[in-house]
């Protein structure tokens, strides 16, 4: 048997508390309704009528006025609580007698079905229940059969248990301040292991970790793919702490893990196997420890005409590869000098470059094409305006030169290689 508690008057927040006093099996279809399982409570409170009275008394003590209905099907109980009011106990096999007089529009059905029933001249739930079940299923489908069963209290369904939002955090105040990384990691590892176990029991993985190291330090790491191995998380925290060591001794540690559904293990059948995400993430962290934070990742071209415009991303590396067709023609490669080499350029009578001298680049120009004028983004701080030349020097090497309009200076931008 199931009880439905519907709020008539009073604060909504008190409802779960009252429901939890009687049963841990609680469903919340909406904010003002709670469905609980009351089977087995007879030994404590007596009959179902006594149970309903006790619930009403407890609610009244908290300033809450409830409509309470008890029935063998949770949806039947909800229908009675919503549309009859007061305290109703519907014994099995008497559902139709209690609900029958209610108008047909109280049924939790789609507008199409209600419209059809009204056009048929069905006015009450008793009229609907009197229709032949097979004919109803033929005309209204499975939904029609479910609605008829609901009125008659037939069938059963389990409650969709409402779980309170889980808190995946842990905090420890240290007796003695810690200034070394290893003992700190020992503490963090215990906390992370516990939280990951709780996440695994709910079939969840980790999307990000935030470790607050009081008084000042904080570690935030986002994982590009869901991680369920605590060792991977701890390795990332270790590398992050090695790269950015706390400046002051740590007095308290708080760890918060962001949950996410775990990733599917299998990708395409005919695509090459992707790199193991946990190892790839660790590799990226190790590489960044060597070459710097913004120096490792997958390049992405920016949507601009500005020369050498790109940024580095790392999340795309974790996606599985696709087999595509490579272009048939070999294209000339280019190498940048970063930063561009300041150059001294002599021009001829036709104002074309005749001789170039820069650090590591020196010679007479044998061939040149240009100038190609390019300007842009004058409305932002990254504006550029320049004349570009493609040149070949007497040693056979080919370069791209440019003259900046603002400073009238020459630069060697790079090398065709």
């Amino acid at each position, binding site marked *: 048997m199931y009880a439905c508690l519907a709020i008539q008057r009073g604060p909504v927040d008190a409802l779960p508390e009252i429901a939890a006093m009687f049963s841990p099996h609680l469903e919340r279809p909406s904010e003002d309704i709670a469905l609980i399982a009351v089977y087995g409570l007879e030994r404590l409170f007596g009959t179902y009528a006594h149970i309903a009275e006790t619930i009403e008394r407890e609610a009244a003590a908290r300033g809450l006025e409830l409509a309470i209905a008890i029935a063998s099907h949770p949806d039947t109980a909800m229908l009675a609580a919503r549309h009859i009011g007061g305290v109703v106990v519907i014994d099995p096999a008497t559902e139709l007698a209690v609900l029958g007089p209610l108008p047909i529009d109280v049924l939790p059905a789609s507008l199409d079905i209600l419209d059809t029933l009204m056009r048929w001249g069905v006015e009450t739930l008793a009229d609907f229940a009197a229709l032949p079940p097979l004919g109803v299923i033929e005309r209204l489908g499975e939904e029609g059969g479910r609605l008829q069963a609901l009125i008659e209290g037939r069938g059963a369904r389990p409650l969709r248990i409402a779980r309170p939002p889980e808190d995946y955090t842990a905090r420890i105040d240290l007796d003695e301040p810690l200034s070394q990384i290893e003992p700190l990691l020992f503490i963090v590892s215990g906390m992370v292991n516990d939280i990951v176990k709780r996440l695994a029991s709910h079939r969840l993985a980790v999307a990000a970790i935030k470790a607050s190291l009081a008084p000042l330090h904080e570690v935030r790491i986002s994982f590009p793919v869901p991680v369920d191995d605590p060792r991977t998380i701890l390795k990332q925290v270790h590398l992050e702490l090695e790269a950015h060591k706390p400046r002051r001794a740590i007095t308290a540690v708080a760890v918060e893990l962001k949950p996410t559904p775990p990733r599917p293990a299998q990708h395409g059948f005919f695509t090459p196997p992707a790199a193991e995400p946990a190892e790839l993430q660790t590799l990226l962290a190790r590489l960044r420890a060597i*070459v710097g934070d913004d120096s490792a990742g997958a*390049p992405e*071209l920016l949507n601009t005409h500005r020369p050498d415009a*790109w940024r580095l991303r790392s999340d795309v590396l974790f996606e599985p*590869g696709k087999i595509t067709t490579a272009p048939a023609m070999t*294209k000339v*490669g280019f190498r940048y000098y970063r930063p561009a080499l300041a150059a001294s350029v002599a021009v001829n009578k036709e104002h074309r470059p005749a001789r170039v001298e820069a650090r590591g680049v020196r010679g007479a120009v044998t061939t040149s094409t240009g100038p190609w004028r390019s300007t842009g983004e004058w409305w932002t701080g990254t504006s550029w305006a320049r004349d570009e030349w*493609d040149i070949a020097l007497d040693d056979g090497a080919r370069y791209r030169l440019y003259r900046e309009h603002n400073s009238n200076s020459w630069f060697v931008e790079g090398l*065709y290689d």
Partner: protein
Amino acid sequence: MSLPVRKLADLIPRKPAAAALCPYTPAGLPDLPEGAITEIYGPRSSGRATLLHAALAAATNAGELCALIDAADAFDPCSASHAGVHLNRLLWVRSHHDAHDALKAADLVLHAGGFKLIALDLCGADTQRIPISWWRRLRLAVENTSSILLVTTGAPLLRQAATIQIALETHRALWSGTLFEGADIAARQRKPMQIAPAPTILHARTK
């Protein structure tokens, strides 16, 4: 009852007779062997970046994950994308003109696994002080894996560590009126040795 007699040679796992070859180079050049180092060297504008981009394009189009360790911070993503490289399958590591950091990064990437083609671009970097032991270390790291280590340099560096060496020479450029249209690449296989090797001429275009 007699026990089966097995030869000792059958019990020792043998290395495969020849490494698998991947066709990641333009036609006319040797394929790149797995589990070995291939070295491409040549002067400026001889086509080192062109061949590097072509290899990365072929590997990323095969769905493989590749890595480029860029010692001189010279890689141009725009021209690489134009050559067909899938940039989202490429890990670009910029070592900011530090050849030793580049070697350390290459060692890490090789040991991490999961990358088919690992390109170590040392063109324009200071390679004078690289100890020869580094090349032996990298060769041991790549051996018995299915990865390919491709090293591009200005001058031959790897000596015995490289399985294949390709020397490039500056060849003619194609200028059409007021446009730089492309360049030809003259490539010569230096290792394994060939008797009187003739250069292979490849055509590369800007468009």
